[in-house]
Structure formats: C-alpha cells, structure tokens
C-alpha cells in the first residue's frame, strides 16, 4: 500500500498544483481585490487601499454597467429559451428515426468548431448585411419591402442580431447533450407507454421530459457559464467602441481594467468586483436550478 501512496501523490500533485495556481489562488485574490482600489493589476498587496464595498456600490450606480447586466440577463433568458427549445426539438427529431441522422447532427454542431471571429464575420458581412445580405434578399424576393429594409446592425436591432447569431451557434452544442441524454433513456418505458396507448407527444411530456431533469441541469449550468463569459461576439459586433446594445459585463471589465478609449483611470478593483458579481450570478443560478430540478428522480 505504501507504493500506492507515492503513486497517489505523484499522480495528483501536478493537477493539484494547477488547480491551486490557476483557480483557487486567483479566485481568492480576485475576491480580495474587489474590496480594494489599486492603480494596476500587478501592484503588490501592500499598495492596495481598502475601500470596503465601495467598488460594488459604485458599480450598481453605473448605468452602463447595469445596461451590461441587463444585456447579459436578456441573452441568458431569451437566448436560453430559444437555444433550449431548438436544441431539444432537434434532439427529439433526430431520435425519432429520421434518416441520415449523423449527417444532420454533424452540420448542426458545425458552428461550434468554427472560430467565433470567423463565424461572426459571416453573420455581419453576409447574413445581416442590410443591402445585399441573405435575410435582406429573402425578404426582397418575397416582396416584403418593409422587412427587407431592416437595419440589423443599428439601434435596438443590434442587440437582437447579436443574440440570434450567438444563440444559433449554441444550438448544436446543447442538442448533442440532449441527444445523449435521450439516447440513454431506458427504452422499456416507451414500450410500456406505447402499449398503454400513449401517443408520441404524451410520451414526450410524460416520460422524456421528466427523465431529462439531470440533463436540463447540466444544460442550464453550461449555458449560464457561456453567457457570463460573453465577450468575443460583443467585440465583433462593436469592433471600434463598445456600445450599449452589445456591452456585457466582461466587456465592461475589460474596458475598465485595461482602459479603453476613454481617457479614464484603470480600475482593477472595480473589475474584480465585476468578476465576483459574475461568480455570484453563476452560483445563484446554480442554486436555483438545483432547487428546481431536485434529484428525487432517476439519475443518469
């Protein structure tokens, strides 16, 4: 058994160090930073100035930060509903015996393997292009002149075009998770239900959905994490200056910590507070999800 001990230590040590350096230490330090002000991220702790909750209080009073929060929550809620709806729908369609299943699955997942920057270019310069773009052409062909004139990259529409583009790419990923969830469901439930005369729709609502609770939990967690980290799409939609339709907390943090166009001071403490607030959001949603989908049923 002694041998095993050395082995356990040798094998876990590198990963443990990674965890301590890459996750535990930064989390603790970020938490502490959020109660201080400092001139630069790399300043040593002795030069920090304690300000209590002032960073948080200021953030909550900053209207552009609140706009960023609002954008993020809207993406989470509306995008989330859309993404989960389509992901589940496709997963159900694909598990109901369509032909060439792996072909459809591969193409729907495809956007996830493309660099977001590359993919965003496609949306901006082709699909949403207001004079020659794909959507414009479709509406123009249908004779819907008014719709064909929509400007997707200005005003409120800018938020929605961003939301749609981002969500579209996410559907494939969540569809895969649903797919594997559904495929693991025990077939005999369905057979019994079919014998009892339940139709497909009833089966879906009474068997599939309840059994997918665990999968939903996973999906909500992953979706939350990906929305909280929302950054590159926002940068692509507003490449010159951040804008209120597309700003998210990460973008705001990037601006105030690394100092964007404004001639303003850099505020790492405030940036850390943004980080902590984001972590709290994740925790809160995690907690709610766990309450909502209590694991009193079967687990897969």
């Amino acid at each position, binding site marked *: 058994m002694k041998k095993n001990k050395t082995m356990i230590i040798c094998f876990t040590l590198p990963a443990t160090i*990674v965890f301590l350096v890459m996750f535990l230490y930064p989390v603790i330090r970020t938490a502490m930073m959020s109660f201080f002000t400092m001139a630069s991220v*790399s300043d040593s702790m002795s030069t920090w100035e304690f300000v209590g909750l002032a960073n948080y209080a200021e953030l909550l009073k900053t209207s552009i930060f609140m706009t960023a929060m609002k954008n993020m929550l809207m993406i989470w809620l509306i995008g989330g509903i859309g993404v989960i709806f389509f992901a589940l729908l496709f997963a159900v369609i694909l598990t109901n015996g369509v032909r060439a299943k792996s072909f459809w699955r591969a193409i729907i997942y495809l956007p996830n393997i493309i660099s977001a920057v590359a993919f965003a270019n496609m949306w901006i310069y082709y699909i949403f292009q207001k004079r020659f773009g794909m959507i414009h052409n479709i509406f123009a062909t249908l004779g819907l002149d008014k719709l064909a004139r929509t400007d997707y990259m200005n005003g409120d529409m800018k938020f929605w075009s961003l939301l749609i583009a981002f969500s579209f790419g996410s559907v494939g990923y969540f569809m895969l998770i649903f797919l594997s969830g559904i495929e693991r469901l025990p077939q005999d439930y369905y057979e019994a239900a079919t014998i009892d005369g339940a139709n497909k729709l009833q089966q879906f609502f009474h068997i599939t959905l309840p059994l997918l609770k665990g999968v939903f939990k996973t999906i909500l967690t992953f979706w939350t994490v990906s929305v909280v980290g929302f950054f590159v799409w926002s940068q692509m939609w507003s490449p010159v200056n951040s804008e209120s339709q597309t700003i998210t907390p990460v973008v705001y943090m990037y601006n105030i910590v690394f100092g964007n166009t404004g001639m303003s001071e850099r505020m790492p403490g405030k940036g850390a507070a943004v980080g902590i607030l984001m972590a709290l959001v994740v925790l809160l949603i995690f907690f709610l999800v766990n309450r909502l989908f209590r694991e009193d049923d079967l687990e897969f």
Partner: protein
Amino acid sequence: MAKKEKEKKVREPFNAKREAKLIPGYILLIIWVAFTVCALLWIVAASFSTSPEIMKGQTLKFASGLHPENYAAAWSSNNIKVFFMNSAIYAVLGTFFTILISAPCSYVLARFTFLGNKVLSSSFIVAMSIPQIMIVLPLFGLATKAHLTGTKIILILLYIGMQVPFTTTFLMTFFANLSRTYEEAAAIDGCSPMKTFWKIMMPLAQPGIVTVGIFNFMNIWNEYFISLIFGATEKNMSVGPGLKSVLTSMQYTGNWGGLFAAVIIVFLPTFIIYVVLSEKIIAGVTGGGIKG
C-alpha cells in the same frame, strides 16, 4: 408500433406512413442545415472574390473571375501564417501536457480511495464552472511578475490550466469503467502500479484520451479572450485575435477577399479534423456534458 420500434434498430425499411409523420421534422432540419451551408458557402465564394464585389453584394457573380491569390495574400501579407503556427503550437502543446497532467490524476481519482479524493474531484467540477473573468486579473498579475507576458510560454501554461479540470473529470469516467482485472493481472506479473498505469491503463484508455484531446485541441485553437489579454502582440496571437486584428486593419487596407480567405484558412484545420473525426468530437461533448 412497439414492434416497429424494435425493427428500426435493425434496419429501417421504407414506410410511407412513418416517413410522412417525420416530414415536419425533415423540413425543419433542411431549413436549418441549408441556412448554415449557404452561409458557409458564401464565405468560400467571398474568399475568391474582390473587395468591391463583396461590398456591392456581387460576390456570387464572380464578374472578374476567381481570385485564388487572396489566399496567398492572406497567408503571408495578412500574417495568417504566424497566427496559424501560433495556434498550432498552443493547441498541440496545450493538449499534450494537459493529458500528461490529467490522465494520471484522473486514474488515481477513479481507482483509489484516499483522503482528499472527493475534495479534489469536486474541486475540478467547480473549477469548470468558474467564469474566466473571475480569475484573469490575478493571473495577469502573476504573469507580469514572472515576466511571462508577451511570451508564448504563458499562453501554453494558461491553456493547460484551463483544460485540466475538464480533462480530468472526463477521463475519470473512462478509467472507472475499465475492468480491474488488468491491474490484478499486472500485479501478479510483478508490474508496479505506476508502470501498470503507463504501460497498460493509458493505452486502454486511448479512445477517451483521443476524444478529449481532440476536444481540447479545438477549444484551444479557437480560444479568444485569454489569447487577447496575454498574447496581445502579432507574433504571439492565436487565430482568434489574429483574425480580429486583420479585420481592424481591413478598414484601412481594404482587402476583404483576403479577409475571407483568412477566415477559411483558420477554419480549415478544425473543419478537416471534424470531417474525419466528428464521432469522436461529438462523443467528447456529450461525455463532458453528462458529467458536468
């Protein structure tokens, strides 16, 4: 119906009634897929076109013929070759070392009970859901203190760190599912546990390792935020921020055909891997998804 369900598993005979029921499903799939494919094909078309044609919406007419020289221009003068090589370095080294660190750890976590096992394995699960925004600031501070900013090493280290929790968690299931008889047999042959791991268990877990490796490779290849903050100079940029910088300078240099050629070049490696190994990649997603 029940009988049919079973038949389906063997081989699907054509059944008009069944197929008819699926028509709405097919329609939806076709619309979605057609949209994706059209949009991607447009990028391909644009990459062979010229700026005025792209900007005037005449991409698909190819009035001035094909322009494959866009690719040459993108590769060398737009610096894509630098970004491309960087991404390759980050992805290959990052993936390799991640597995080197994660595989032994996940094996031990899956096989042995010891003090701290639970703590460590749940720590990794928690780490997977920590937003990056929460950890970048101290890491940036650390990197500058170690004078690693502006080097490739820092990015490789960070990518390894970022992938370790997921990889370890993913591989744990793999090792847990391997039969213990292998180790027992090895022990009888006088093979030490460590040796057993490297010689026997690692090869056995290869399907899982390849899957998670490809998945990590793609993630690192397409990564943006970390590369932007820590590698913010042309010679260290990976393809994501690199493309973005090409895009910003595009406003001034105006070679949009070159930009889209760059997009295709960046997209190709992951696409080829995907075409060849899509089953593996998909397995990677779902494996991680279920565990998380």
